[in-house]
């Protein structure tokens, strides 16, 4: 009796969290609309922005997924020294603060970048990073790591025994592709594509810096302009709703496309398989080297430029850095609590609705969310006292979908493998968390925490909305730029990048060692 009551309560935990999340995201939207006394109609430029947003998100997501396949395959079937480190490093662009990434991309692909300088010496036409191609280049730069990670996970999810059986039956690489890899890709690709699509749907700074002009305006940018330029909260709310509708539509479509992979669980025997040789080996080598060049070069460029100035940064930068780290850690903590509650709820009930709610933050506009919260809470607390807590809360919520992507499958496996055992032993509540859930899910929890911390570290969108006398590190970076101090800004960028990456690495590593 007690156990069944507890079971019900626990699944309610997930549902309640999901409901709160949906209420928050839709409620803030409603608050903005209410403040504006209704929704406003959209102009022709807004419609163009919607069209461009969808178009660039489709292209960016498709390109990221396509390019990720050979890279993930090469990483899955080759073993070389430093492979683990490379996989971790290749993930870095995803957690890079946007402004830092753009600095890096420009120094490689810009008019004065190394590539164009090379092309000029060879008398070849130059590449332009400005315009839609720049937006897509930057989006692929950010999201290729995400796609590679998700697809690599797919490869790792094919049980070792399948490869062993294939080997014993003398499968050629083509047969492995046909019987093992293609069914896996069929199952994994829609999810990977969707994740990138959704991230690109809310892109803001990238489009603004590299878009080349109003032709490359995204919906999120239109929301910002509605706030900043027109004070038209009604239009902001309408655009926010469109963004969410696009998300829900995309998610429903991909649900329909996705076919669950039929790969039972396997013993995680250490792999000792030889990858195919010959030209395939060469191709894998090229894929890995090209991906590493594309993803690591811009970061290296940022580091080389900023590193010499770091020692000259004033003390207040370090204070801001410490403040950012504390906020990022708290954000990560809450992100893990929320996503774990949701993931366990989803594993228990299999509810699609909870999952959908968990993915909503991915497309909720941080601007609408922040402004809505502000409207809802004003009058109760001083806005200045709200700035940091709201920033922490929004960052935690924004990191949720990424945490969920790794936690949901892990929670499902946990339930499938040990759920009945735990129930028969009546392990519940705290001891279930302490002895079953935390140890078994340590890896995905560490990964989710690291991701949340890094994303919160680089956040600028939310914090900039609120008045504060306590700047964070990204804000500090902007202040440098605003005071003509580009050298200090690039030092700040290195600091920001290193801290973000260190936070991610520490959490991820911690999860692995736990």
């Amino acid at each position: 009796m007690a156990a069944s009551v507890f079971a019900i309560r626990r699944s309610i935990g997930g549902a309640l969290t999901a409901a709160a999340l949906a209420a928050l995201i839709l409620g803030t939207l409603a608050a903005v609309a209410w403040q504006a006394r209704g929704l406003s109609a959209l102009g022709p430029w807004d419609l163009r922005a919607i069209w461009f947003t969808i178009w660039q998100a489709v292209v960016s997501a498709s390109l990221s997924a396509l390019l990720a396949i050979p890279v993930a395959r090469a990483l899955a079937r080759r073993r070389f020294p430093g492979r683990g480190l490379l996989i971790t490093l290749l993930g870095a662009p995803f957690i890079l603060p946007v402004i830092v990434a753009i600095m890096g991309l420009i120094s490689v692909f810009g008019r004065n970048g190394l590539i164009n300088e090379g092309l000029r010496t060879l008398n070849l036409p130059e590449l332009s990073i400005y315009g839609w191609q720049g937006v897509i280049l930057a989006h692929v730069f950010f999201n290729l790591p995400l796609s590679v990670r998700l697809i690599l996970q797919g490869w790792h999810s094919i049980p070792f025994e399948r490869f062993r059986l294939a080997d014993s039956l003398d499968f050629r690489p083509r047969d492995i592709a046909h019987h093992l890899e293609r069914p896996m890709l069929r199952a994994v690709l829609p999810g990977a594509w969707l994740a990138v699509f959704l991230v690109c749907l809310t892109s803001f700074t990238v489009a603004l810096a590299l878009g080349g002009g109003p032709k490359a305006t995204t919906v999120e940018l239109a929301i910002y302009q509605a706030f900043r330029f027109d004070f038209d909260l009604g239009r902001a709310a309408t655009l926010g709703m469109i963004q969410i509708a696009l998300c829900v539509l995309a998610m429903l479509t991909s649900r329909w496309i996705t076919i669950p992979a039929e790969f039972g669980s396997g013993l995680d025997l250490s792999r000792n398989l030889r990858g195919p040789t010959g030209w395939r080996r060469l191709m894998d080598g090229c894929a890995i080297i090209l991906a590493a060049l594309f993803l690591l070069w811009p970061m290296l460029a940022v580091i080389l430029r900023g590193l010499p100035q770091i020692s000259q940064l004033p003390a207040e930068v370090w204070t801001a850095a410490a403040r950012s780290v504390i906020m990022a850690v708290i954000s990560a903590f809450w992100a893990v609590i929320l996503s774990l509650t949701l993931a366990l709820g989803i594993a228990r009930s299999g509810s699609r609705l909870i999952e959908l709610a968990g993915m909503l933050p991915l497309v909720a506009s941080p601007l609408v969310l922040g402004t809505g919260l502000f409207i809802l809470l004003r009058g109760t607390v001083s806005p200045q006292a709200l700035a940091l807590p709201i920033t922490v809360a929004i960052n935690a919520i924004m990191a949720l979908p990424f945490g969920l992507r790794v936690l949901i499958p892990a929670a499902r496996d946990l339930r499938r493998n040990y759920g009945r055992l735990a129930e028969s032993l009546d392990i519940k509540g705290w001891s279930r968390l302490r002895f079953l859930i935390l140890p078994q899910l340590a890896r995905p929890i560490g990964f989710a925490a690291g991701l949340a911390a890094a994303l919160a570290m680089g956040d600028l969108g939310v914090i900039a909305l609120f008045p504060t006398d306590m700047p964070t590190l990204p804000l500090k970076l902007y202040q440098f730029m605003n005071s003509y101090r580009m050298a200090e800004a690039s030092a700040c960028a290195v600091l920001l990048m290193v801290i973000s990456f260190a936070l991610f690495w520490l959490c991820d590593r911690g999860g692995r060692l736990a």
Partner: protein
Amino acid sequence: MLELRDIQVTRGDFILKADLAINPGTRTAVIGASGSGKSTLLSLIAGFLAPETGRVVWNGTDLTESAPGKRPISILFQDQNLFPHLTAAQNIGLGLRPDLRLDRAQQDQVAAVLAQVGLAGFSDRKPENLSGGQQSRIALARILLRARPILLLDEPFAALGPALKSEMLTLLDQITADMGTTVLMVTHDPNDARAFAPQTILVDDGVAHQPVATAALMDNPPAGLKDYLGLP
């Protein structure tokens, strides 16, 4: 003759040594405590593991460098012998052509072996719709079709009940007798060894010993095996 010449393989702090020979067409049981290295021995022969030293030789041909699928060997694992997303006929057909482009004659061959294992009419079933015994039969049908001179069995019937297991062993007996297959079978059960294999390799203390007559070994087991079998 299947020869393991001065083999040594290390996995972590576990070392397995083997220096033995098995006559073609014989059936050999492989017995030993859990973790003694029985499966390692089979992986070595099948080519999933490369030895640090020594050679694997079949009838004078050195197999040590060959890929698993290129060896004259079929293997049945404990589980995961079938692809869950393919039908019974497809799973069997893989034994002929991994790309499954089977011509008329080959399709007939698949149907024939299906009938031979008593599953005619099951060709379109997927593994999830087959019982454990039926799944084993499908795997056996593929062995039949591939007709490799060496068959390695890594406890493939461990999960089946006694009646089903003896049924499988009987079926296996027919198949391998017809083809004169050299069989190595890992087993926990001394009775299986006695019933199926005239000779037995004892894997104990990091060494796979030269095969000896099963009956003699069971009647007068050395200390390590005695403990494992729970004999006084």
